[in-house]
């Protein structure tokens, strides 16, 4: 009994040594590799050094002092990217509800990076997550891109204020008036309470931001205005959560009106207007396809993502906030079931997601100079039984399954 514990103890003792301090170059070879586009390819090796991918190619020579990892019988993908989550946010408080327009609130300021949520996401192969404020406000605030593990925790936030979240539809108005029984002394006795009101809040905020810029007096405008101006100037993306057909059309109208760099979020009813969306050229971070319900009277269809991709819309995936979605890779598999080609499904959670979020120069593909966020899978990742055997984030081994099916030594 005592002897049986020794390997365990040893592994606990030695684990930190594995987890950190990987200074020598690392060569991964023998696995089938998905680089972020195209199908899985055999015979590709990946050289990692200093937290970055140094080279990807056939029969790469191992530099001096490099550790070589023979991963025969495994599948490698870039670390997955989740387009919208609430990881690390306190569950009922992901919005500041005292106002409808809080564009200046940064999610990164209240993020609990030590939360176990990140570990669960990591163990599903997700290395980068976009954490977004909740959808109870018209302007929810600014998204943040986080690595799910690795490094000292401050460094895990790798791009702050990546997008501004705007929510259309009935949800922002729901908390107002209705719940409080119309008590006029309540903080919640205010507009908007309808779709019209919601859209008006958006218009008014943008109008006032523009007005402030025009009447520029030398003083720096306040933070909310700065964020709105950044959105108007295409410095940050505008993520509009629109579920129903009508809301999607509204989003397109608003984008045209204010010339926004729009990204559509959830877009459950995009099924109806694939061609319109393709013509407009805005990408979509689609709702998790396994979830059969959606708000705002939208009707989810399993094949929405496939149809969007077919029409030429850039589609990324998300697990969403409190939607009851599966792990991200399973959601990709659901999209495949809905008719999306496998390669497209993997792209939706890697390279396309990186492009949509504007970080294609950092993550999303296995290419020279990008972060070494690598997942080694036990089986083709879209297969139901697949699981990550080893996960690297910026070259650090952050998850390792010693008894896995691969020959990872």
């Amino acid at each position, binding site marked *: 009994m*005592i002897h049986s*514990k020794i390997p365990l*103890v040893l592994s*606990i*003792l030695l684990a930190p040594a594995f987890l950190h301090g990987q200074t020598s170059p690392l060569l991964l070879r023998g696995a089938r590799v998905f680089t972020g586009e195209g199908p899985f390819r055999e015979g590709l090796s990946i050289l990692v050094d200093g937290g970055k991918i140094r080279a990807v190619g056939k029969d790469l020579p191992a530099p001096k002092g490099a550790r070589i990892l023979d991963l025969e019988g495994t599948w490698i993908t870039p670390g997955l990217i989740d387009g919208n989550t609430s990881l690390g946010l306190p569950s009922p408080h992901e919005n500041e509800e005292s106002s409808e327009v809080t564009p200046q609130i940064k999610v990164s300021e209240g993020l609990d990076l030590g939360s176990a949520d990140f570990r669960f996401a990591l163990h599903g192969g997700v290395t980068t997550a976009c954490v977004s404020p909740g959808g109870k406000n018209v302007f929810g605030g600014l998204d943040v891109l986080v690595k799910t593990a690795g490094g000292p925790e401050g460094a895990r936030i790798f791009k702050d204020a990546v997008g501004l979240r705007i929510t259309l539809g009935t949800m922002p108005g729901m908390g107002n008036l209705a719940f409080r029984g119309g008590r006029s002394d309540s903080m919640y006795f205010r507009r908007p309470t309808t779709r019209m009101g919601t859209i008006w809040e958006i218009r008014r905020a943008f109008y006032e931001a523009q007005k402030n810029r025009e009447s520029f007096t030398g003083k720096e405008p306040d933070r909310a205005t700065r964020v709105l101006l950044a959105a108007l100037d295409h410095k940050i993306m505008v993520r509009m959560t629109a579920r129903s057909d009508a809301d999607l059309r509204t989003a397109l109208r608003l984008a045209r009106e204010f010339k926004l760099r729009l990204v559509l979020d959830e877009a459950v009813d995009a099924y109806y207007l694939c061609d319109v969306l393709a013509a407009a050229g805005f990408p979509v971070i689609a709702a998790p396809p396994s979830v059969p319900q959606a708000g705002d009277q939208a009707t989810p269809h399993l094949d929405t993502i496939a149809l969007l991709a077919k029409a030429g819309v850039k589609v990324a995936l998300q697990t969403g906030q409190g939607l009851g979605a599966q792990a991200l890779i399973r959601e990709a598999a659901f999209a495949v079931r809905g008719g999306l080609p496998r390669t497209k499904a993997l792209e939706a959670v890697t390279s396309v997601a990186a492009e949509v979020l504007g970080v294609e120069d950092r993550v999303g593909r296995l290419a020279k100079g990008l972060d070494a966020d690598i997942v080694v899978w036990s089986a083709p990742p879209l297969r139901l039984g697949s699981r990550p055997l080893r996960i690297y984030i910026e070259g650090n081994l952050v998850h390792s399954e010693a008894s896995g099916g691969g020959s990872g030594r």
Partner: protein
Amino acid sequence: MRSNRLFVLPLLFHLGSAPSLLQGQDSREPVNIAVGIASPNELQNLLRDENVLFIKTSAFFDPTSAGKGSREPVWLAFRGRERVGVFSMDEVPPRGEGEEAKRMDFTKDAPGSWLTPGFCDALSAWFLDPASWKERGLDLSVKARERLQPWQKGWDELPLGSGITTVYVPPSFGADQAGPGALVKLDSGGDPEAGPGGALFLRLASPTRKATNLDRGKVAKTLASLLDAAKAYEKARRKWKKERKEYEKKRKAFLDWYRKNPLKPGDKEPSGATPAKKGKGRRSGRRMAKLTPELIEKILKRYPPQLRDRIRKQLEAQMKLQQARAAKAKAEAAPKDGKKTASAKDPKKKTAPKRPAFPKEPKRDPVKEALLEVLAGKRLLRVEVHRAEEIRAVLALAKERKIGKMVLVGASEAWKVAKEIRRAGVSVLLLPETVKQPGLELLPDHAAANAAALAREGVEFCFGSAGRESARLLPVLAAAAVARGADENAVLTALSRAAYESSGRDWKSGATGWVVWSEDPFAPTARVLGLFDGRKLRLLGGGR
């Protein structure tokens, strides 16, 4: 955590042969120890016994011995859990040829090391399902032993680090009546110790519940009525047992008769030979009496005159029916030939005994049986009372009903009546948490001050955490009692022997295992170096 796992060593570890631990030379003066001095022969026997472990510490405490231990370095010999000898430094020779006993010298690394018995939490919730902590509607038949569940791994580290090795778990905390609790070793993962013991618990008063003076006066009455009911039950059971004996006697006679006079084919079975089916008995018991004209007249008198004619007709019809049935039965029983008549008039048949009826058993009541065990002195009774008048009333009742083994739980005002408690010879279980209530006079630092007052009077007392988390407060409370003037030995006894005995078990040397401390166990810097439970010595790497 990690180091603890690494250092779990069986007794047969090789430390016995490690050179640094071999010898116990000490340049100090020989110590005169008042307790447990063994003869040189005995020492030699112990040294040759492979089941003996010698532990050297700078001081030790053992509530079993009269002298309560020593504050000088000694070698202590253990066989199993039991301490079998104490030897001063110069008595024990360096390890020699043919020595089989193991040795462990703690004074090398910790010059101020102490050995004490493992501490015992006299009222704890470890291993008890949290859902049942506050459960109320229990009675004395519910046993803690059946409700324990293994606790999460690693939880035992906290109390173990405070030297607490044993906990006493009641079936519930919320219930006013709770059956036998269980003694559990924290190391055991929730398996209660085998053996008898386990105290009953009755909450007669609570500091949190509002009570008028009148209610408080009822405290003794409640207990008395419970005991009376138990007594009545015992009497009924005794009567039934007597009846059963008689029944056995009659039944034997009944069976013997038929063994001697076996039934022949065609004989009627004796009444009751085949038990009547349940439910039919009642109907048969209602059979109508045999009607005669006189009886009919008698019955009719009970009815008003205008009804009598109708009823008479019915009864007479009934009488005729009965007579017809009787005649038919007689005709059937009538002999068809002479032989049968003879057998029917067999004189033996006349003497055939009636089948005896089984006496009705009074329903068994585990609650009352448990109380009877208390009255018989076989089980300990824990009674929660708080105010001085309640304590007095319960003590008087205990004297009247001759309850020998009793522990007062809570007893917030025990300091007021310490003398009376000592005279009654009961011990007190003090709880750390007491709620201030009007009419309840608490001393500042109430539990500790209470303990000190009891210690001054010579009353035996112990501490219970009454929860899971506050177990580690017990040594702090004990130390605070020392601060208030209690004797240190009395307080160490309270943490070990008194707490163990408050579970209804008799204390034996090492009943709660042994703990080796890096220094005086009350010092905040003291660490638990090792835990010894008779089978293995578990070394904690400075765990707390």
